[in-house]
Protein backbone atom coordinates (compact mmCIF):
# COMPACT_ATOMS: atom_id res chain seq x y z
CA UNK A 1 0.00 0.00 0.00
CA UNK A 2 1.35 3.44 -0.85
CA UNK A 3 1.28 6.14 1.80
CA UNK A 4 -1.51 7.84 -0.19
CA UNK A 5 -4.01 5.20 0.90
CA UNK A 6 -2.72 4.97 4.48
CA UNK A 7 -5.12 6.20 7.16
CA UNK A 8 -4.44 9.87 7.82
CA UNK A 9 -3.47 9.34 11.48
CA UNK A 10 -1.13 6.51 10.45
CA UNK A 11 0.43 8.82 7.87
CA UNK A 12 1.09 11.43 10.54
CA UNK A 13 2.54 8.82 12.91
CA UNK A 14 4.66 7.45 10.09
CA UNK A 15 6.05 10.94 9.39
CA UNK A 16 7.33 11.11 12.97
CA UNK A 17 9.36 7.88 12.71
CA UNK A 18 12.96 8.07 11.53
CA UNK A 19 13.89 5.35 8.99
CA UNK A 20 15.91 2.34 10.10
CA UNK A 21 14.90 2.58 13.77
CA UNK A 22 13.40 0.07 16.20
CA UNK A 23 9.65 0.46 16.62
CA UNK A 24 7.11 -1.20 18.90
CA UNK A 25 3.44 -0.72 18.01
CA UNK A 26 1.28 -1.42 21.05
CA UNK A 27 -2.18 -2.55 19.98
CA UNK A 28 -1.04 -3.00 16.39
CA UNK A 29 -4.28 -4.57 15.15
CA UNK A 30 -3.80 -6.37 11.84
CA UNK A 31 -0.39 -4.75 11.40
CA UNK A 32 -1.27 -2.13 8.74
CA UNK A 33 0.87 0.61 10.27
CA UNK A 34 3.73 -1.75 11.20
CA UNK A 35 3.84 -3.27 7.72
CA UNK A 36 3.95 0.22 6.24
CA UNK A 37 6.77 1.25 8.58
CA UNK A 38 8.71 -1.94 7.86
CA UNK A 39 8.43 -1.47 4.11
CA UNK A 40 8.63 2.27 3.64
CA UNK A 41 10.82 3.20 6.59
CA UNK A 42 12.84 -0.01 6.89
CA UNK A 43 12.25 -0.08 10.64
CA UNK A 44 12.74 -3.13 12.82
CA UNK A 45 9.01 -3.53 13.45
CA UNK A 46 7.56 -5.24 16.53
CA UNK A 47 4.04 -5.33 17.83
CA UNK A 48 1.76 -6.27 20.70
CA UNK A 49 -1.86 -7.10 19.95
CA UNK A 50 -4.56 -8.41 22.26
CA UNK A 51 -6.68 -10.18 19.63
CA UNK A 52 -5.66 -13.56 18.28
CA UNK A 53 -7.02 -12.69 14.85
CA UNK A 54 -4.88 -9.57 14.75
CA UNK A 55 -1.75 -11.46 15.75
CA UNK A 56 -2.39 -14.13 13.13
CA UNK A 57 -2.85 -11.46 10.44
CA UNK A 58 0.44 -9.82 11.52
CA UNK A 59 2.39 -13.08 11.58
CA UNK A 60 1.12 -13.84 8.07
CA UNK A 61 2.55 -10.46 6.99
CA UNK A 62 5.92 -11.50 8.38
CA UNK A 63 5.70 -9.11 11.33
CA UNK A 64 7.02 -10.01 14.79
CA UNK A 65 3.94 -9.60 16.94
CA UNK A 66 3.13 -10.95 20.38
CA UNK A 67 -0.32 -11.64 21.72
CA UNK A 68 -0.44 -9.49 24.80
CA UNK A 69 -1.94 -6.66 26.79
CA UNK A 70 -0.58 -3.11 26.97
CA UNK A 71 -1.53 -2.92 30.64
CA UNK A 72 0.49 -5.93 31.76
CA UNK A 73 3.08 -6.85 29.16
CA UNK A 74 5.09 -3.67 28.61
CA UNK A 75 6.72 -4.27 31.99
CA UNK A 76 8.50 -7.30 30.53
CA UNK A 77 10.59 -5.26 28.10
CA UNK A 78 14.01 -3.98 29.11
CA UNK A 79 14.73 -0.23 29.29
CA UNK A 80 15.55 1.61 26.07
CA UNK A 81 14.97 -1.31 23.73
CA UNK A 82 13.04 0.76 21.17
CA UNK A 83 13.49 4.10 19.45
CA UNK A 84 9.72 4.59 19.19
CA UNK A 85 6.82 3.04 21.01
CA UNK A 86 3.51 3.72 19.26
CA UNK A 87 0.08 3.55 20.84
CA UNK A 88 -2.57 4.34 18.26
CA UNK A 89 -6.22 4.69 19.27
CA UNK A 90 -5.64 2.42 22.26
CA UNK A 91 -4.78 4.51 25.34
CA UNK A 92 -8.47 5.11 26.10
CA UNK A 93 -8.99 1.33 26.31
CA UNK A 94 -6.21 0.69 28.84
CA UNK A 95 -6.93 0.16 32.53
CA UNK A 96 -4.08 2.39 33.61
CA UNK A 97 -3.16 4.93 30.94
CA UNK A 98 -0.60 6.67 33.13
CA UNK A 99 1.35 3.47 33.79
CA UNK A 100 1.15 2.49 30.13
CA UNK A 101 2.58 5.85 29.09
CA UNK A 102 5.30 5.60 31.75
CA UNK A 103 6.24 2.15 30.48
CA UNK A 104 6.30 3.39 26.90
CA UNK A 105 8.73 6.15 27.84
CA UNK A 106 10.86 3.64 29.77
CA UNK A 107 11.24 1.04 27.04
CA UNK A 108 11.35 3.58 24.19
CA UNK A 109 13.16 6.85 23.77
CA UNK A 110 10.10 8.29 22.06
CA UNK A 111 6.41 7.62 22.50
CA UNK A 112 3.81 8.37 19.84
CA UNK A 113 0.21 8.35 21.03
CA UNK A 114 -2.96 8.96 19.04
CA UNK A 115 -6.35 9.04 20.69
CA UNK A 116 -9.93 10.23 20.14
CA UNK A 117 -10.37 13.69 21.66
CA UNK A 118 -13.28 13.70 24.08
CA UNK A 119 -13.14 17.50 24.09
CA UNK A 120 -14.29 17.73 20.47
CA UNK A 121 -17.22 20.11 20.05
CA UNK A 122 -19.49 17.40 18.70
CA UNK A 123 -19.04 15.36 21.86
CA UNK A 124 -19.46 18.41 24.08
CA UNK A 125 -22.70 19.40 22.39
CA UNK A 126 -23.95 15.82 22.43
CA UNK A 127 -23.48 15.67 26.17
CA UNK A 128 -24.82 19.17 26.70
CA UNK A 129 -28.02 18.77 24.68
CA UNK A 130 -28.78 15.07 25.11
CA UNK A 131 -27.46 14.64 28.64
CA UNK A 132 -26.25 11.19 27.71
CA UNK A 133 -22.85 9.68 27.02
CA UNK A 134 -21.97 10.55 23.44
CA UNK A 135 -22.30 7.92 20.74
CA UNK A 136 -20.77 9.12 17.48
CA UNK A 137 -19.66 7.62 14.19
CA UNK A 138 -16.09 7.18 15.46
CA UNK A 139 -17.14 6.16 18.98
CA UNK A 140 -20.16 3.95 18.26
CA UNK A 141 -20.37 1.98 21.55
CA UNK A 142 -22.76 2.68 24.38
CA UNK A 143 -21.22 3.48 27.74
CA UNK A 144 -21.94 0.02 29.15
CA UNK A 145 -20.28 -2.00 26.41
CA UNK A 146 -17.49 0.25 25.22
CA UNK A 147 -13.90 -0.95 25.50
CA UNK A 148 -12.99 2.71 25.90
CA UNK A 149 -12.91 3.13 29.66
CA UNK A 150 -10.51 6.08 29.95
CA UNK A 151 -11.49 8.81 27.56
CA UNK A 152 -9.54 12.03 27.72
CA UNK A 153 -9.37 15.37 25.95
CA UNK A 154 -6.34 16.83 24.23
CA UNK A 155 -5.82 19.15 27.24
CA UNK A 156 -6.10 16.20 29.62
CA UNK A 157 -3.41 14.43 27.67
CA UNK A 158 -1.13 17.47 27.78
CA UNK A 159 -1.61 17.53 31.56
CA UNK A 160 -0.70 13.83 31.80
CA UNK A 161 2.42 14.40 29.70
CA UNK A 162 3.36 17.22 32.07
CA UNK A 163 2.75 15.02 35.10
CA UNK A 164 5.08 12.42 33.64
CA UNK A 165 7.62 15.13 32.85
CA UNK A 166 7.53 14.13 29.22
CA UNK A 167 8.53 16.59 26.55
CA UNK A 168 6.06 17.17 23.72
CA UNK A 169 8.23 17.03 20.62
CA UNK A 170 5.31 17.50 18.30
CA UNK A 171 1.54 17.52 18.52
CA UNK A 172 -1.16 17.42 15.89
CA UNK A 173 -4.91 17.47 15.90
CA UNK A 174 -6.98 15.97 13.09
CA UNK A 175 -10.51 17.04 12.25
CA UNK A 176 -13.37 14.71 11.38
CA UNK A 177 -12.12 14.49 7.78
CA UNK A 178 -8.66 13.47 8.97
CA UNK A 179 -7.21 16.87 8.03
CA UNK A 180 -4.81 18.61 10.42
CA UNK A 181 -6.37 21.41 12.44
CA UNK A 182 -4.40 24.65 11.92
CA UNK A 183 -0.94 24.29 13.39
CA UNK A 184 -0.71 27.81 14.77
CA UNK A 185 -3.87 27.52 16.78
CA UNK A 186 -3.85 27.49 20.60
CA UNK A 187 -4.56 24.35 22.65
CA UNK A 188 -8.17 25.37 23.42
CA UNK A 189 -8.93 25.55 19.71
CA UNK A 190 -7.42 22.11 19.05
CA UNK A 191 -9.27 20.73 22.00
CA UNK A 192 -12.52 21.99 20.49
CA UNK A 193 -11.92 21.24 16.80
CA UNK A 194 -9.67 18.16 16.85
CA UNK A 195 -11.46 14.84 16.58
CA UNK A 196 -8.22 13.10 17.48
CA UNK A 197 -4.89 14.09 18.92
CA UNK A 198 -1.52 12.73 17.90
CA UNK A 199 1.35 13.37 20.27
CA UNK A 200 5.04 12.65 19.97
CA UNK A 201 6.58 12.56 23.44
CA UNK A 202 10.16 12.15 24.58
CA UNK A 203 11.76 11.94 27.97
CA UNK A 204 12.87 15.25 29.50
CA UNK A 205 16.28 13.86 30.34
CA UNK A 206 16.89 12.97 26.70
CA UNK A 207 16.62 16.63 25.70
CA UNK A 208 19.32 17.43 23.19
Amino acid at each position, binding site marked *: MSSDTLRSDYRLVSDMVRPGTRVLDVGCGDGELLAHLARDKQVDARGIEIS*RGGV*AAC*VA*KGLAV*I*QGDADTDLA*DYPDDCFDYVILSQTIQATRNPKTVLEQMLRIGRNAIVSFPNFGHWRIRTHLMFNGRMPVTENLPDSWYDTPNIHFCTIRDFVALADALQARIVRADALDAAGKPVGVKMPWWFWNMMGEQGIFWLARQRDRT
Partner: protein
Amino acid sequence: MSQRHHEADDPHSLVLRLGADQPLVLESGASLAPFQIAYQTYGTLNAARTNAILICHALTGDQHVANVHPVTGKAGWWISMVGPGKPIDTERFFVICANVIGGCMGSSGPASTNPETGEAFATGFPVLTISDMVRAQARLVDHLGIETLLAVVGGSMGGMQVLAWASLFPDRVFAAMPIASAAKHSAQNIAFHEVGRQAVMADPDWRRGRYQEEGARPVKGLAVARMAAHITYLSEPALQRKFGRKLQDREAPTFSFDADFQVESYLRHQGISFVERFDANSYLYLTRAMDYFDLAADNGGSLGAAFRNTRTRFCLVSFTSDWLFPTADSRQIVHALNAAGASVSFVEIESDKGHDAFLLEEPNLFATTRGFLNAAATARGVSGEAA
Protein backbone atom coordinates in the same frame (compact mmCIF):
# COMPACT_ATOMS: atom_id res chain seq x y z
CA MET B 1 13.88 -61.14 16.19
CA SER B 2 10.87 -59.00 16.89
CA GLN B 3 9.57 -56.32 14.55
CA ARG B 4 10.72 -53.80 17.13
CA HIS B 5 14.32 -54.94 17.02
CA HIS B 6 14.36 -54.99 13.28
CA GLU B 7 13.03 -51.43 13.06
CA ALA B 8 15.57 -50.20 15.63
CA ASP B 9 18.59 -51.51 13.70
CA ASP B 10 17.38 -51.61 10.14
CA PRO B 11 14.50 -49.17 9.78
CA HIS B 12 12.15 -48.48 6.90
CA SER B 13 13.80 -45.09 6.49
CA LEU B 14 16.81 -43.35 5.16
CA VAL B 15 19.68 -43.93 7.60
CA LEU B 16 22.83 -41.93 8.23
CA ARG B 17 25.47 -44.20 9.80
CA LEU B 18 28.37 -42.50 11.51
CA GLY B 19 31.40 -44.61 12.27
CA ALA B 20 33.65 -45.05 15.28
CA ASP B 21 35.77 -42.17 13.95
CA GLN B 22 32.87 -39.70 14.30
CA PRO B 23 31.71 -40.02 17.90
CA LEU B 24 28.95 -37.87 19.36
CA VAL B 25 30.17 -36.52 22.68
CA LEU B 26 27.18 -36.41 24.99
CA GLU B 27 26.35 -33.91 27.72
CA SER B 28 26.89 -36.63 30.32
CA GLY B 29 30.49 -36.94 29.15
CA ALA B 30 29.86 -40.31 27.53
CA SER B 31 30.53 -40.75 23.88
CA LEU B 32 28.32 -42.44 21.27
CA ALA B 33 30.09 -44.20 18.38
CA PRO B 34 29.27 -45.68 16.05
CA PHE B 35 25.71 -44.42 15.85
CA GLN B 36 22.96 -43.98 13.32
CA ILE B 37 20.16 -41.55 12.57
CA ALA B 38 17.02 -42.69 10.78
CA TYR B 39 15.19 -39.96 8.89
CA GLN B 40 12.63 -39.14 6.26
CA THR B 41 12.61 -36.26 3.79
CA TYR B 42 9.81 -34.75 1.74
CA GLY B 43 10.02 -32.27 -1.13
CA THR B 44 13.14 -31.10 -2.91
CA LEU B 45 16.14 -29.15 -1.65
CA ASN B 46 16.60 -26.09 -3.86
CA ALA B 47 19.89 -25.30 -5.57
CA ALA B 48 20.76 -22.60 -3.01
CA ARG B 49 19.96 -25.05 -0.18
CA THR B 50 17.85 -22.41 1.53
CA ASN B 51 14.47 -24.11 1.74
CA ALA B 52 15.10 -26.87 4.30
CA ILE B 53 12.77 -27.19 7.28
CA LEU B 54 13.64 -29.57 10.09
CA ILE B 55 10.71 -30.99 12.06
CA CYS B 56 11.46 -32.23 15.56
CA HIS B 57 9.09 -34.90 16.84
CA ALA B 58 7.59 -35.22 20.30
CA LEU B 59 8.15 -37.90 22.97
CA THR B 60 6.38 -40.76 21.26
CA GLY B 61 6.58 -39.46 17.70
CA ASP B 62 9.07 -40.49 15.06
CA GLN B 63 10.41 -39.56 11.63
CA HIS B 64 7.28 -40.72 9.82
CA VAL B 65 5.68 -37.27 9.70
CA ALA B 66 3.78 -37.51 6.45
CA ASN B 67 4.02 -41.08 5.20
CA VAL B 68 2.33 -44.32 6.18
CA HIS B 69 3.90 -45.65 9.38
CA PRO B 70 5.88 -48.85 8.68
CA VAL B 71 4.83 -50.52 11.95
CA THR B 72 1.26 -49.36 12.52
CA GLY B 73 0.19 -48.84 8.90
CA LYS B 74 -1.43 -45.56 9.96
CA ALA B 75 -0.98 -42.14 8.35
CA GLY B 76 1.96 -39.94 9.41
CA TRP B 77 1.56 -38.13 12.73
CA TRP B 78 1.48 -34.62 11.22
CA ILE B 79 -0.21 -35.34 7.92
CA SER B 80 -2.56 -32.39 8.41
CA MET B 81 0.41 -30.00 8.72
CA VAL B 82 3.00 -31.38 6.29
CA GLY B 83 2.50 -32.18 2.61
CA PRO B 84 1.80 -30.64 -0.78
CA GLY B 85 -0.19 -27.44 -0.27
CA LYS B 86 -0.24 -27.95 3.51
CA PRO B 87 1.01 -25.25 5.94
CA ILE B 88 4.48 -26.83 5.81
CA ASP B 89 4.29 -27.09 2.06
CA THR B 90 6.45 -29.86 0.60
CA GLU B 91 6.03 -28.31 -2.84
CA ARG B 92 7.95 -25.29 -1.63
CA PHE B 93 10.08 -26.65 1.21
CA PHE B 94 12.47 -29.54 1.71
CA VAL B 95 11.25 -31.13 4.92
CA ILE B 96 13.45 -33.32 7.10
CA CYS B 97 12.45 -35.28 10.17
CA ALA B 98 14.80 -37.57 12.07
CA ASN B 99 14.03 -40.08 14.76
CA VAL B 100 15.67 -38.70 17.93
CA ILE B 101 18.62 -40.61 19.30
CA GLY B 102 17.32 -42.65 22.19
CA GLY B 103 14.25 -43.43 20.06
CA CYS B 104 13.27 -46.84 18.77
CA MET B 105 12.47 -46.26 15.09
CA GLY B 106 15.96 -46.59 13.71
CA SER B 107 18.13 -43.95 15.37
CA SER B 108 20.55 -45.31 17.95
CA GLY B 109 18.85 -45.97 21.24
CA PRO B 110 18.44 -48.56 23.97
CA ALA B 111 16.65 -50.93 21.58
CA SER B 112 19.59 -50.86 19.13
CA THR B 113 22.05 -53.71 19.06
CA ASN B 114 25.32 -52.96 20.81
CA PRO B 115 27.96 -54.05 18.25
CA GLU B 116 30.33 -55.00 21.07
CA THR B 117 27.96 -57.50 22.66
CA GLY B 118 25.51 -58.38 19.92
CA GLU B 119 22.72 -57.67 22.43
CA ALA B 120 20.43 -54.67 22.80
CA PHE B 121 22.00 -51.74 24.66
CA ALA B 122 19.02 -51.66 27.04
CA THR B 123 19.97 -49.65 30.13
CA GLY B 124 23.60 -49.78 29.05
CA PHE B 125 22.80 -46.98 26.60
CA PRO B 126 24.12 -43.61 27.82
CA VAL B 127 21.55 -41.23 29.31
CA LEU B 128 20.72 -38.45 26.83
CA THR B 129 19.62 -34.84 26.87
CA ILE B 130 17.64 -32.69 24.46
CA SER B 131 20.91 -31.02 23.43
CA ASP B 132 22.39 -34.43 22.58
CA MET B 133 19.42 -35.09 20.27
CA VAL B 134 19.97 -31.74 18.59
CA ARG B 135 23.72 -32.25 18.14
CA ALA B 136 22.97 -35.59 16.48
CA GLN B 137 20.46 -33.88 14.16
CA ALA B 138 23.11 -31.29 13.30
CA ARG B 139 25.28 -34.15 12.00
CA LEU B 140 22.44 -35.13 9.72
CA VAL B 141 21.99 -31.56 8.52
CA ASP B 142 25.76 -31.45 7.82
CA HIS B 143 25.46 -34.69 5.89
CA LEU B 144 22.65 -33.24 3.77
CA GLY B 145 24.92 -30.33 2.90
CA ILE B 146 22.72 -27.71 4.55
CA GLU B 147 24.45 -24.87 6.36
CA THR B 148 21.41 -22.96 7.63
CA LEU B 149 17.94 -24.38 8.02
CA LEU B 150 15.11 -22.15 6.89
CA ALA B 151 13.17 -23.27 9.95
CA VAL B 152 13.14 -25.72 12.81
CA VAL B 153 9.60 -26.60 13.91
CA GLY B 154 8.29 -28.87 16.64
CA GLY B 155 5.76 -29.33 19.42
CA SER B 156 6.21 -30.41 23.03
CA MET B 157 9.53 -32.29 23.27
CA GLY B 158 9.98 -31.23 19.64
CA GLY B 159 9.64 -27.62 20.80
CA MET B 160 12.37 -28.20 23.36
CA GLN B 161 14.60 -29.35 20.51
CA VAL B 162 13.68 -26.23 18.52
CA LEU B 163 14.76 -24.05 21.46
CA ALA B 164 17.97 -26.03 21.89
CA TRP B 165 18.70 -25.69 18.16
CA ALA B 166 18.25 -21.92 18.33
CA SER B 167 20.44 -21.70 21.41
CA LEU B 168 23.24 -24.09 20.33
CA PHE B 169 23.34 -23.23 16.61
CA PRO B 170 21.87 -19.71 16.25
CA ASP B 171 23.51 -19.16 12.86
CA ARG B 172 22.07 -22.37 11.46
CA VAL B 173 18.44 -21.55 12.29
CA PHE B 174 16.82 -18.80 10.23
CA ALA B 175 13.42 -19.25 11.87
CA ALA B 176 12.31 -21.24 14.90
CA MET B 177 8.81 -22.36 15.80
CA PRO B 178 8.40 -24.04 19.21
CA ILE B 179 4.79 -25.08 19.73
CA ALA B 180 3.19 -26.00 23.08
CA SER B 181 6.59 -26.18 24.67
CA ALA B 182 8.71 -24.84 27.52
CA ALA B 183 12.28 -23.78 28.29
CA LYS B 184 12.31 -26.21 31.18
CA HIS B 185 10.38 -29.23 32.33
CA SER B 186 8.26 -28.36 35.37
CA ALA B 187 8.26 -30.28 38.65
CA GLN B 188 4.74 -31.49 37.85
CA ASN B 189 5.86 -32.79 34.47
CA ILE B 190 8.88 -34.55 35.96
CA ALA B 191 6.51 -36.10 38.48
CA PHE B 192 4.23 -37.47 35.75
CA HIS B 193 7.22 -38.89 33.92
CA GLU B 194 8.44 -40.59 37.07
CA VAL B 195 5.06 -42.29 37.46
CA GLY B 196 5.40 -43.61 33.91
CA ARG B 197 8.93 -44.86 34.43
CA GLN B 198 8.04 -46.54 37.69
CA ALA B 199 5.12 -48.29 35.97
CA VAL B 200 7.51 -49.67 33.34
CA MET B 201 10.13 -50.73 35.85
CA ALA B 202 7.55 -52.30 38.17
CA ASP B 203 6.51 -54.69 35.40
CA PRO B 204 8.21 -58.07 36.11
CA ASP B 205 8.71 -58.41 32.38
CA TRP B 206 10.94 -55.35 32.31
CA ARG B 207 13.73 -57.67 33.61
CA ARG B 208 15.96 -54.76 34.66
CA GLY B 209 15.79 -53.56 31.08
CA ARG B 210 16.99 -56.83 29.54
CA TYR B 211 13.58 -57.92 28.28
CA GLN B 212 14.71 -58.19 24.67
CA GLU B 213 17.45 -60.69 25.48
CA GLU B 214 15.18 -62.63 27.81
CA GLY B 215 12.30 -62.87 25.34
CA ALA B 216 9.87 -60.79 27.41
CA ARG B 217 8.18 -57.39 26.96
CA PRO B 218 6.94 -55.12 29.75
CA VAL B 219 3.73 -54.36 27.88
CA LYS B 220 1.58 -53.90 30.98
CA GLY B 221 3.94 -51.40 32.58
CA LEU B 222 4.41 -49.43 29.37
CA ALA B 223 0.66 -49.43 28.71
CA VAL B 224 -0.02 -48.01 32.19
CA ALA B 225 2.66 -45.38 31.62
CA ARG B 226 0.99 -44.42 28.36
CA MET B 227 -2.47 -44.32 29.93
CA ALA B 228 -1.33 -41.97 32.68
CA ALA B 229 0.56 -39.78 30.23
CA HIS B 230 -2.35 -39.69 27.80
CA ILE B 231 -4.55 -38.07 30.43
CA THR B 232 -2.05 -35.23 30.67
CA TYR B 233 -2.26 -34.66 26.91
CA LEU B 234 -6.00 -34.01 27.07
CA SER B 235 -8.13 -31.57 28.99
CA GLU B 236 -11.02 -32.09 31.34
CA PRO B 237 -13.50 -30.43 28.93
CA ALA B 238 -12.25 -32.62 26.06
CA LEU B 239 -12.66 -35.80 28.13
CA GLN B 240 -16.09 -34.63 29.23
CA ARG B 241 -17.17 -33.84 25.68
CA LYS B 242 -15.82 -37.09 24.27
CA PHE B 243 -16.83 -39.53 27.02
CA GLY B 244 -18.58 -37.91 29.92
CA ARG B 245 -19.79 -40.75 32.16
CA LYS B 246 -20.99 -42.83 29.22
CA LEU B 247 -20.81 -46.60 29.66
CA GLN B 248 -18.98 -48.88 27.25
CA ASP B 249 -21.31 -51.24 25.34
CA ARG B 250 -23.56 -51.83 28.33
CA GLU B 251 -26.74 -50.49 29.87
CA ALA B 252 -25.65 -50.47 33.51
CA PRO B 253 -22.49 -50.75 35.61
CA THR B 254 -21.35 -54.33 36.07
CA PHE B 255 -20.19 -53.93 39.66
CA SER B 256 -16.76 -55.19 38.65
CA PHE B 257 -13.40 -53.79 37.59
CA ASP B 258 -14.14 -54.31 33.95
CA ALA B 259 -13.93 -51.23 31.73
CA ASP B 260 -17.48 -50.05 32.41
CA PHE B 261 -16.83 -46.47 31.35
CA GLN B 262 -15.96 -45.42 27.82
CA VAL B 263 -13.07 -43.36 29.09
CA GLU B 264 -11.54 -46.49 30.67
CA SER B 265 -11.93 -48.45 27.48
CA TYR B 266 -10.39 -45.60 25.51
CA LEU B 267 -7.36 -45.38 27.79
CA ARG B 268 -6.84 -49.14 27.72
CA HIS B 269 -6.90 -49.00 23.94
CA GLN B 270 -4.38 -46.14 23.96
CA GLY B 271 -2.08 -48.17 26.21
CA ILE B 272 -2.32 -51.38 24.19
CA SER B 273 -1.81 -49.76 20.80
CA PHE B 274 1.15 -47.78 22.10
CA VAL B 275 3.13 -50.84 23.22
CA GLU B 276 2.79 -52.27 19.70
CA ARG B 277 5.00 -49.54 18.33
CA PHE B 278 7.16 -48.29 21.18
CA ASP B 279 10.10 -49.61 23.15
CA ALA B 280 9.85 -49.45 26.95
CA ASN B 281 13.49 -48.54 27.50
CA SER B 282 13.22 -45.78 24.89
CA TYR B 283 10.33 -44.40 26.92
CA LEU B 284 12.58 -44.26 29.99
CA TYR B 285 15.39 -42.51 28.12
CA LEU B 286 13.27 -39.95 26.30
CA THR B 287 11.22 -38.94 29.35
CA ARG B 288 14.51 -38.54 31.23
CA ALA B 289 15.90 -36.28 28.51
CA MET B 290 12.84 -34.04 28.84
CA ASP B 291 13.19 -33.97 32.65
CA TYR B 292 16.77 -32.74 32.34
CA PHE B 293 15.84 -29.93 29.96
CA ASP B 294 16.43 -26.50 31.50
CA LEU B 295 17.70 -24.00 28.97
CA ALA B 296 18.23 -21.21 31.52
CA ALA B 297 20.30 -23.46 33.79
CA ASP B 298 22.45 -24.34 30.77
CA ASN B 299 23.13 -20.63 30.30
CA GLY B 300 24.19 -19.47 33.73
CA GLY B 301 20.62 -19.23 35.02
CA SER B 302 19.49 -16.70 32.41
CA LEU B 303 17.09 -17.73 29.69
CA GLY B 304 17.85 -14.48 27.89
CA ALA B 305 21.50 -15.52 27.73
CA ALA B 306 20.45 -18.61 25.77
CA PHE B 307 19.39 -16.31 22.94
CA ARG B 308 21.83 -13.39 23.28
CA ASN B 309 22.48 -11.63 19.96
CA THR B 310 20.31 -14.14 18.12
CA ARG B 311 19.21 -13.22 14.62
CA THR B 312 16.76 -16.10 14.42
CA ARG B 313 13.12 -15.10 14.05
CA PHE B 314 10.85 -16.92 16.48
CA CYS B 315 7.17 -17.78 16.50
CA LEU B 316 5.74 -19.40 19.63
CA VAL B 317 2.33 -20.97 19.95
CA SER B 318 0.44 -22.21 23.01
CA PHE B 319 -3.07 -23.53 23.57
CA THR B 320 -5.52 -22.25 26.17
CA SER B 321 -6.42 -25.66 27.60
CA ASP B 322 -2.88 -27.11 27.64
CA TRP B 323 -2.08 -27.66 31.31
CA LEU B 324 1.03 -29.76 30.63
CA PHE B 325 2.84 -26.95 28.78
CA PRO B 326 0.69 -23.98 29.74
CA THR B 327 0.74 -20.58 28.07
CA ALA B 328 2.81 -19.19 30.95
CA ASP B 329 5.70 -21.45 29.86
CA SER B 330 5.61 -19.99 26.35
CA ARG B 331 5.31 -16.47 27.70
CA GLN B 332 8.43 -16.97 29.79
CA ILE B 333 10.33 -17.74 26.59
CA VAL B 334 8.79 -14.73 24.86
CA HIS B 335 9.94 -12.47 27.70
CA ALA B 336 13.46 -13.85 27.47
CA LEU B 337 13.52 -13.37 23.71
CA ASN B 338 12.27 -9.80 24.12
CA ALA B 339 14.99 -9.15 26.66
CA ALA B 340 17.48 -10.47 24.12
CA GLY B 341 16.01 -8.16 21.46
CA ALA B 342 15.01 -11.12 19.31
CA SER B 343 12.34 -11.02 16.62
CA VAL B 344 9.50 -12.93 18.22
CA SER B 345 5.85 -13.60 17.54
CA PHE B 346 3.54 -15.33 19.96
CA VAL B 347 -0.04 -16.47 19.77
CA GLU B 348 -2.17 -18.36 22.26
CA ILE B 349 -4.73 -20.42 20.38
CA GLU B 350 -8.17 -21.03 21.85
CA SER B 351 -8.74 -24.78 22.04
CA ASP B 352 -10.27 -27.16 24.56
CA LYS B 353 -8.23 -30.10 23.30
CA GLY B 354 -5.36 -29.78 25.75
CA HIS B 355 -1.71 -30.39 24.95
CA ASP B 356 -2.55 -32.69 22.03
CA ALA B 357 -4.10 -29.72 20.19
CA PHE B 358 -0.84 -29.20 18.30
CA LEU B 359 -1.32 -32.57 16.55
CA LEU B 360 -4.96 -32.00 15.67
CA GLU B 361 -7.01 -30.01 13.18
CA GLU B 362 -6.49 -26.48 14.47
CA PRO B 363 -7.11 -23.97 11.66
CA ASN B 364 -5.52 -21.15 13.68
CA LEU B 365 -2.33 -23.17 14.15
CA PHE B 366 -2.26 -23.95 10.44
CA ALA B 367 -2.77 -20.29 9.49
CA THR B 368 -0.09 -19.09 11.89
CA THR B 369 2.40 -21.73 10.72
CA ARG B 370 1.74 -21.04 7.05
CA GLY B 371 2.06 -17.29 7.52
CA PHE B 372 5.21 -17.47 9.61
CA LEU B 373 7.03 -19.92 7.34
CA ASN B 374 6.05 -18.16 4.13
CA ALA B 375 7.18 -14.83 5.57
CA ALA B 376 10.48 -16.41 6.64
CA ALA B 377 10.93 -17.92 3.19
CA THR B 378 10.28 -14.57 1.55
CA ALA B 379 12.71 -12.84 3.91
CA ARG B 380 15.35 -15.40 3.02
CA GLY B 381 14.66 -15.08 -0.70
CA VAL B 382 13.26 -18.57 -1.18
CA SER B 383 11.23 -18.62 -4.38
CA GLY B 384 7.59 -19.69 -4.48
CA GLU B 385 8.36 -23.17 -5.69
CA ALA B 386 11.18 -25.57 -4.98
CA ALA B 387 13.78 -25.68 -7.76
